[in-house]
């Protein structure tokens, strides 16, 4: 698998895929996309980078253990539902913060935080499985 062409192209490909996954994540509220599918794209970026350059370099690149990333995603995802407590609304009621930023309407919301949480859970969980499988192969 580790041909020169693949090794040269893989880092750029992985970077592009991560960028695209974030794009898919952010457009997800009203259009196709979202945290789950974005997370899958990002996890496959990690997998490709791992095949090309070795699992150790992926682990160095993402700094935290994939399961830790998962845990953080679950944490902020659950926390996003709690915000409505302070407004006397039920768990998971969405809260919006809409403002203009240089004449562009920016809509920040708790569903966005939740979706980022889902994204991280998927990146962590699937990434952890993929890296474990790749590690076993190189033994």
């Amino acid at each position, binding site marked *: 698998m580790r041909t020169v062409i693949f090794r040269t192209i893989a880092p750029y490909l992985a970077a592009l895929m991560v960028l695209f996954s974030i794009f898919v994540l952010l457009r997800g509220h009203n259009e196709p996309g979202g945290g789950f599918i974005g997370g899958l794209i990002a996890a496959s970026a990690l997998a490709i980078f791992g095949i090309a350059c070795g699992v150790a370099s992926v682990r160095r690149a993402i700094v935290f253990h994939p399961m830790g990333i998962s*845990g953080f995603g*679950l944490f902020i995802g*659950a926390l996003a539902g709690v915000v409505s407590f302070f407004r006397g609304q039920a768990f998971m009621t969405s809260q919006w913060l809409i403002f203009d930023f240089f004449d562009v309407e920016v*809509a920040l919301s708790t569903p966005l935080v939740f979706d980022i949480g889902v994204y991280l859970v998927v990146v962590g969980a699937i990434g952890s499985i993929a890296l474990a499988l790749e590690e076993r192969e190189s033994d």
Partner: protein
Amino acid sequence: MAGSSVSVDYADAMITTPIAAGDWLIVAPSLITMLGGALCLMLRKHTDLQPKLGITLLGVLVLASFALLVRVLDHGVITMVMGNWLPPFGIAVTADTLGATLTFIGSVVAFCAGVFGMKTVSNSGRRYGFYPFLLLLMTGVCGSFLTADIFNLYVWFEVLLISSYGLLILGNDRIQLDGAVKYGVLNLVGTNLFLIATGLLYGIFGTLNMADIAIKVAELENPASGTLATVAALYFLAFAMKAAAFPVNFWLPASYHTPNIVVSAVFAGLLTKVGVYALIRIFVLILPASLGYMADIFGLVAIVTLMTGALGALAQTEIRRLLGYLVIAGIGSMLAGVAVASNSEVATLAISGAIFYAVHSIIVMTALYMSAGIMNMMGGSYNLRKLGGLYQKSIAFAGVFLILAFAVSGLPPFSGFWPKIMLVDAAFKDDRFWLGAAILVSGFLTTLAMGRIWIFAFWRGGPEGTPDGKSVEVSGSSQSDLASGAIWLPLGILTALVVYFGIQPEWMIELSTQGASSVVDPLGYIRSVFGEQG
């Protein structure tokens, strides 16, 4: 939606009145354990911090679920609809006395297991994630007990199953993987049946909200129609698998003796009862007509399950497998209650007996598995042939074990006695003499099985072959742990509950009667979900 300038009347789709802060207690058990589990997952490498954090969070869970129970007793059934959407479109989370009681007892057991795990789970077990998995398991268990949406129930089942797979293979032993495969395959089939049945149900009624389905089923002209009967049969099979009822009980004794003893204790206490809870919720609350014509099948399955459990227990020499069969026998008793509930005159009595039995079984089975762990620490084995002389080692522990043995056999004055009386009484009132007799015979055989453990492990002077009157010292597997309070405190708490519910059963009888009437007569439940107009 955000950014649109069209004025929308939100009151058509959303709840606009403020939610009382106290109603947040409904989601608190799942929320605390989910946030806590995530936190523990992030701090997985800090093995000395894990137990402190995990046990603190489980302690908070116990307090929150107790507060929820108190609130339900004060205010009646309470509901919170996720995201403020109006039911049946929003996912309703509803706490009635049944759900709140089981959540509270389950939390106490999880707390005890967390403390017990301080000694029995090694550092590598902690790194593999014992505490995160335990917390997330409780997320699923509490969520199942409190949800009022049938698809949501499926999701919580998945949450608890995935966490239980993690706990089951903690440590990656060969035998654990073997047990996990059996457990995993059967649960996979079970949850798939659950999902298929839910899909069919949604196809019939176009709703997943349990209260809404209950209304629509009651309005049906022909509630015994073929499609609904298919749904009922699928649900019965799916939850019977989860509860380990005969003939789909084989996975339980084949897998529950493989993991760490504290994991076995939690599984034996909680997981099968979630299946029984789902059976009660589905058949008594939303499909009572189906229960009517399936009652004989329920009764037959209950009798055979009771007998399989008790006879299986008599045949075993491995204590953990023996206890696994006793879990199955207990499931038979609870199923007997569900079978009798088809007769509306004794339904409340029968279901309250089943609920009380579930509470008793959660506590006593966890305590018995913990005792088995302590017997292994003292005597170095889980095998009755190799154990002996434990009475000399600790008279107090022998006493505790005897209390638990009496309780699980249903002998007074401990917690197993009262629910058995209620169940047998209900069975006789419904003219199901065989069912009542099966409960009693199973109790008698359980007494014999527990008596075998008592005679071999405690009274005999040493392992098999020791002459009468002589005593041989057996060496334990981890004597040093026996001095730790982390071993004795959880067992003490659970035994105290067993004794308390035996001597002062009024509180639990009151709770289970209230819980039973909220499913037998679902009006309060439906009103709580849909508001007063329901």
